[in-house]
């Protein structure tokens, strides 16, 4: 794409392109919806809220509420979930040196699934406790993985940890299937949760996720140089003065916190955490200093657009978000992969 440079840094151009993409996605998410509001009126309504600007949008109070209390929080939530999952996926790929790592690697999904299922069968899917149960289940699963992998693998145990994650995920999934089987009447609700959705949101979910996502993103962004050091393997990272096990613990803790919170409000949205970082990598090279920040922006834009598809493709009913991310993500990724093979890649 560009002439080879010895040190590839986060270029203002790349950040600019990603920001424009994200803003475009946010705008599209705001303008398009089940209720046909005129784009001009929505724009005027938004502009009216800016300081020193006063425009009459001509929207009724009810229509304005659709913009402010339905569309905007949903778009913001999609952006937060996408950013968190993509950053967590990129960081996991770095810290485990495994291109197939995704945010659910250490059992987050299975743990959240069990937590949510227990919440749904005992209290019903409408209960506000379900996200909390999913969050707790996700954290418990990763903590168990860490206890198991850390206990058997000593100080440097990336692979042991991944294997422990497989075991924990299998166990939690079995438990979840068992609970679900005993309460067959809730299969539909559990299933819809597992496929991922942002359909029932208002600002409360945003408020729930934002603090966790904020902390998670900040820690992961701060660790992006250390992820490059981890790329030379644990033993060599240690000869460079970096404690590999400590970096891994901090990164996993931050990524897990963000992922668990995202899963709690959105269900299991697959594909974002693996496709977005790889697409970024294929376009701008394999330094995590570039991959992590661009994955944050790219993941946000990607999920906002995917959610737009989920809302509109089969309107008035919704397509599960996880279906859209895979359906759109897979072909998109194939195109990126093909183009990169032709030589403009890293």
């Amino acid at each position: 794409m560009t002439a080879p440079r010895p040190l590839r840094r986060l270029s203002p151009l790349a950040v600019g392109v990603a920001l424009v993409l994200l803003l475009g996605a946010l705008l599209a998410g705001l303008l398009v919806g089940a209720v046909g509001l005129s784009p001009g009126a929505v724009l005027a309504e938004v502009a009216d809220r800016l300081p020193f600007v006063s425009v009459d949008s001509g929207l009724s109070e009810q229509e304005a509420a659709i913009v402010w209390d339905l569309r905007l929080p949903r778009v913001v939530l999609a952006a937060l979930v996408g950013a968190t999952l993509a950053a967590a996926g990129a960081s996991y790929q770095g810290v485990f040196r495994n291109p197939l790592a995704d945010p659910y690697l250490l059992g987050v999904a299975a743990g959240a699934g069990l937590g949510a299922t227990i919440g749904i069968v005992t209290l019903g899917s409408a209960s506000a406790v379900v996200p909390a149960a999913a969050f707790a289940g996700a954290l418990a699963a990763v903590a168990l993985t860490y206890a198991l992998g850390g206990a058997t693998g000593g100080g440097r145990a990336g692979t042991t940890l991944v294997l422990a994650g497989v075991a924990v995920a299998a166990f939690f999934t079995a438990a979840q299937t068992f609970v679900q089987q005993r309460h067959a009447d809730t299969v539909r609700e559990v299933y819809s949760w597992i496929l991922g959705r942002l359909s029932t949101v208002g600002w409360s979910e945003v408020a729930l996720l934002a603090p966790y996502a904020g902390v998670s993103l900040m820690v992961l962004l701060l660790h992006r140089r250390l992820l490059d050091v981890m790329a030379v393997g644990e033993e060599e990272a240690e000869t460079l003065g970096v404690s590999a096990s400590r970096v891994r613990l901090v990164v996993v803790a931050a990524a897990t916190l963000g992922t668990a919170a995202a899963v709690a409000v959105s269900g299991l949205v697959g594909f974002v955490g693996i496709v977005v970082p790889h697409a970024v990598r294929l376009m701008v090279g394999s330094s995590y200093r570039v991959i992590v920040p661009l994955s944050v922006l790219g993941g946000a834009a990607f999920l906002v657009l995917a959610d737009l598809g989920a809302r509109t493709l089969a309107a008035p009913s919704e397509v599960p978000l996880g279906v859209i991310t895979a359906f759109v993500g897979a072909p998109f990724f194939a195109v990126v992969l093909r183009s990169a093979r032709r030589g403009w890649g890293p």
Partner: protein
Amino acid sequence: MSGIIARGVGVRYDGRVALEGVDLEVPAGEWAALVGPNGAGKSSLLRALAGTVPSSGTVAVGGRSRHEMSRRRWARLVAAVAQHPVLPAGLTAAEYVLLGRTPHLGYLAAESRRDVVAALAALERLDAGALASRPLGSLSGGERQRVVLARALAQDPEVLLLDEPTASLDIGHQQQVLDLVEGLRRERGIAVVAALHDLTLAAQYAGRLVLLDRGRVAAEGPATAVLTPEGLAHFSGARVALLRGPDGELVVAPRRPA
């Protein structure tokens, strides 16, 4: 510059003794070669010196022991080149060498202009300046080894540990790499500790040979004293003749049974 001193160093893997009671002293500007059969403990000793395996005994540079220093401070004094370094294919040579500045940076700090200059200078010094923009995946064996050495040099160390730095290189590139290390030793007074398979190269480049056998030092001294046909037959089960080159340099030649 100060050398490295190890006293009574021992390493165990799951209770199995890999190294026991090893003393080693390599002053600044000296080159010591670790020789001995496979499994004799050469890599374990290098790991103990680098501080990447738990070990008993003491290791110190400039009178300060590894135990009283953070991992990061130790990495400013001691650089290690692994036997099979991991080279992330997508990083450029310059990005990779810049990782050598890690011990000089705070935990979450970014590199300054000075670090970039140091990294590029290290590449230049190892005749690899032209490789700066090349992805690691596209480098040849000899180029890779020079880039890996440049990363170690970017650490600005007082002690350089090398684990089989010439493995899988052809003979010309083996000599090129060792000549570069020799240059660094002379110029900067870096103490070099290198595990070397090739006894002829060990004899020609290192001032001192340390023969390890089953985790202990079996012999130590100048090449002529350590390398004897009887000793090599005993420790390595090798049949060799010791010859002299045109300038009197030692050559270890393998022999077929008659």
